[in-house]
């Protein structure tokens, strides 16, 4: 049976833990709001980009040779996985679920006989993948989300990636990240970066593609647009992941705060019982002492 003092010390320590977790929850909540706003703000650009892409690819026509970023290398030997995680922990299953998906993907690809290369955006992903697949990590970026994510950060990842593609170091790139659904749920999503997926032509017939004039020609614009598109896809993934991270941390810290509260209640009960037992014992001792006299 722990002494009264021990219990008191434990209660105090759990109380200070609760203070920390609830502060972290608050911080995550405010960061979350900002991250979400940022993720929303990129939508007009992405939509306009998708619209132009659709027009361009549909007017490129059959048979014409598109840029390699669009058509691909024609092989699927080397696959590059971009794994987006957070730098910091204490956010529940946020990182491990991305890594789990990455591991599954690696196994599946290797079973097919493909070579896998990995780029880690975020420290946690690298830490978790390093043991098993350390040799496959060809790129690593951390501190991306510090002080807000700007498009420059996405470029920092996208540009070397495009370089690698130019040099023929991989045939296909897929980005794996946590897609933000709401505060409670992040869904692991993987999206193909290279070759750039051709947007589905809208078949509802409501908006027939206008006949555009191109200046310069379609091919040139496309080769200008495609690298940008890769950058934007990376940027969106980073933003979604950042919003998801804060959401996941909010939930995790909320749970932790609640658990700490429960623990304090339980310990307080135990403390009071022990105190009562101690007082009763003392009283019995006094009474028996008095009777003996």
């Amino acid at each position, binding site marked *: 049976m722990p002494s009264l003092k021990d219990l008191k010390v434990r209660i105090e320590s759990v109380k200070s833990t609760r203070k920390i977790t609830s502060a972290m929850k608050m911080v995550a909540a405010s960061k979350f709001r900002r991250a979400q706003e940022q993720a929303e703000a*990129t939508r007009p650009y992405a939509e306009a980009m998708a619209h132009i892409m659709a027009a361009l690819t549909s007017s490129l026509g059959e048979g014409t040779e598109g840029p390699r970023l669009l058509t691909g290398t024609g092989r699927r030997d080397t696959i590059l996985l971009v794994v987006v995680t957070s730098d910091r922990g204490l956010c529940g299953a946020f990182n491990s679920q991305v890594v789990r998906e990455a591991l599954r993907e690696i196994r599946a690809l290797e079973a097919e006989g493909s070579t896998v290369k990995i780029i880690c955006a975020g420290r946690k992903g690298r830490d978790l993948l390093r043991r098993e697949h350390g040799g496959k990590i060809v790129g690593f970026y951390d501190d991306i989300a510090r002080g807000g994510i700007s498009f420059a950060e996405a470029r920092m990842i996208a540009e070397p990636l495009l370089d690698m593609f130019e040099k023929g170091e991989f045939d296909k790139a897929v980005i794996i990240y946590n897609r933000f659904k709401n505060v409670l749920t992040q869904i692991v999503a993987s999206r193909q970066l290279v070759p750039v997926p051709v947007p589905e032509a809208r078949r509802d017939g409501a908006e027939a593609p206008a006949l555009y004039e191109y*200046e310069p020609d379609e091919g040139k*614009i496309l080769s*200008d647009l495609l690298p*940008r598109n890769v*950058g934007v896809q990376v940027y969106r993934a980073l933003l979604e992941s950042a919003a998801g991270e804060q959401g996941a941390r909010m939930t995790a810290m909320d749970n932790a705060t609640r658990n700490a509260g429960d623990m304090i209640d339980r310990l307080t009960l135990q403390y009071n019982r022990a105190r009562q037992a101690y007082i009763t014992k003392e009283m019995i001792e006094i009474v028996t002492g008095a009777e003996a006299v």
Partner: protein
Amino acid sequence: MLRFDLVSPEQKLLSDDVAMVTLPGSEGDFSVLPGHAPMISSLRVGFIDVYEKESHGPARRILVSGGIVEVQAGRCTALAEDAVPLAEIDQDALQSDLQRASAKLSLAEAAEKPAIEAQIALLTRKLEVLALAAGQGH
């Protein structure tokens, strides 16, 4: 009126009904008025001029370092990663950026050189465009 949107990946920079927009197309400047035929063009480094009334001078001048523009019935959407209004441009900052980049170039490893050279080219071009604009008396 023409609906003009200028968007960057980070935010919607401008969304306004305007009379005319002049854009620095990669094959030469061009203006878009309401009813312009649908077109898609890439942009070079230069100014996007937004005219709120045709008779007046440009209400807004925005320096972009490339991008893409889509014109379709009654609207014009420009995508630019890097767009700064003329009033907010700090030429001295650009100059010192340029100097810093040039200094870095001599120390950089071979693998880093192309990126720095591209940055220098962009900064030089921006300064040229700015000098030109100043010369025109804007």
